[in-house]
């Protein structure tokens, strides 16, 4: 199984993307999409990328829900800052370093996607030797609170999934 | 009734999106630095994809979807390439 289909999740994703694009589940579309999916997963295997190991998938729906809520909340927050720039005194934006315990590469990638996709925070850099990441925050009120938010809200659950 | 409501909403949406493209285009021309221009270009791509989707709703034709998909793909490749170009440090002003 592993030799025939090295990256089953990627193959499944490619097949469903193809079927969505074709807008049909006729046998022809399924066969062509299956060939593309297997070819794609072989290509990725030949690039020798590290394999993703997913465990505790039960955490995933809650995490995705929280990401959605957080995206909406910070959309409102950033829109407010843009519309009323001087609201609530002086606003400070800046860089902060956050020490991370997570080392799994796909977990770090997921954390980077979550933080950057949320308006108001951009993941800038990661230093793998020290395990710290550099984050730019638009509304930096309290550095310790941001470290707490990143570690407690996202990193802990991502570690449960990816490590 | 619902056609009239939707027609007006689509018209207003198109005006809002064109205004947003105007803001991004102003930042694209104004700069002041190369990274500001690349950021504005990336925003332009995303708003153009939204505008194409709205055109699709207005005309009722599903073909605009493919144009929107293509423009997001091309926008990603363009922005990634431009950022890499800036990273090389050869275009310091």
């Amino acid at each position, binding site marked *: 199984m592993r030799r025939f289909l090295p990256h089953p999740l990627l193959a499944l994703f490619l097949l469903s993307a193809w079927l*969505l694009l074709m*807008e049909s589940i006729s046998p022809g579309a399924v066969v062509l999409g299956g060939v593309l999916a297997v070819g794609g997963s072989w290509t990725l295997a030949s690039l020798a990328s590290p394999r993703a190991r997913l465990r505790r998938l039960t955490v995933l729906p809650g995490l995705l829900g929280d990401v959605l809520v957080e*995206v909406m909340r910070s*959309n409102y927050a*950033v*829109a407010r800052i*843009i519309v009323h*720039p001087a609201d609530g005194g002086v606003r400070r*934006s800046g*860089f902060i370093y956050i020490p991370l315990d997570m080392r799994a590469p796909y977990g770090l990638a997921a954390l*980077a*996607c979550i933080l*950057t*996709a*949320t*308006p108001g925070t*951009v993941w800038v*850099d990661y*230093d793998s*030797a020290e395990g710290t990441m550099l984050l730019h925050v*638009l509304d930096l009120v309290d550095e310790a609170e941001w470290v707490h938010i990143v570690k407690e809200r996202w990193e802990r659950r991502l570690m449960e999934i990816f490590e | *009734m*619902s*056609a009239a*409501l*939707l*027609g*007006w*909403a*689509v018209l*207003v*949406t*198109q005006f*809002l*999106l064109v*205004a*947003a493209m105007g*803001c*991004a285009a102003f*930042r694209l021309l104004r700069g002041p*630095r190369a*990274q*500001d221009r690349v*950021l504005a270009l990336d*925003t332009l791509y*995303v*708003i153009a*994809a*939204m505008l194409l*989707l*709205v055109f699709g709703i207005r005309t*009722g034709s*599903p073909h605009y979807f493919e144009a929107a998909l293509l423009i997001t793909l091309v926008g*990603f490749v363009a*922005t*990634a390439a431009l*950022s890499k170009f*800036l990273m090389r*440090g050869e275009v*310091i002003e």
Partner: protein
Amino acid sequence: MTHAAELPAWAALSVAVLLLLGAGLALVGAVGLLRLGSFYERVHAPTLATTLGIGCVLVASMLFFSLVQSRFILHEVLIAVLVVITTPVTLMLLTRAALYRDRIEGKAPVPPPPRSHR
């Protein structure tokens, strides 16, 4: 808009609200590109358009075409997945490029490079 005449009123209303919300967020994000002071602040502005902005328009498009053609139209999900994956990559690359250039010029107040990279 003759093709929209058969839409029920609730659907037309929700498509209209979603479209206006998405376009409004995109406009606020683009205005943020103009109003915010430094590049690192401006990086945050377009994320309004790339998250909820395009998300609202995509949901509106899915709802509209599903009802007009009376079958499920889901391929807008592809654009959503694409945008969700690509936007963080482009913003990260762009911010790092800007940081790299500012560090070389040494003008703007930016954090120093990590010790292991020096």
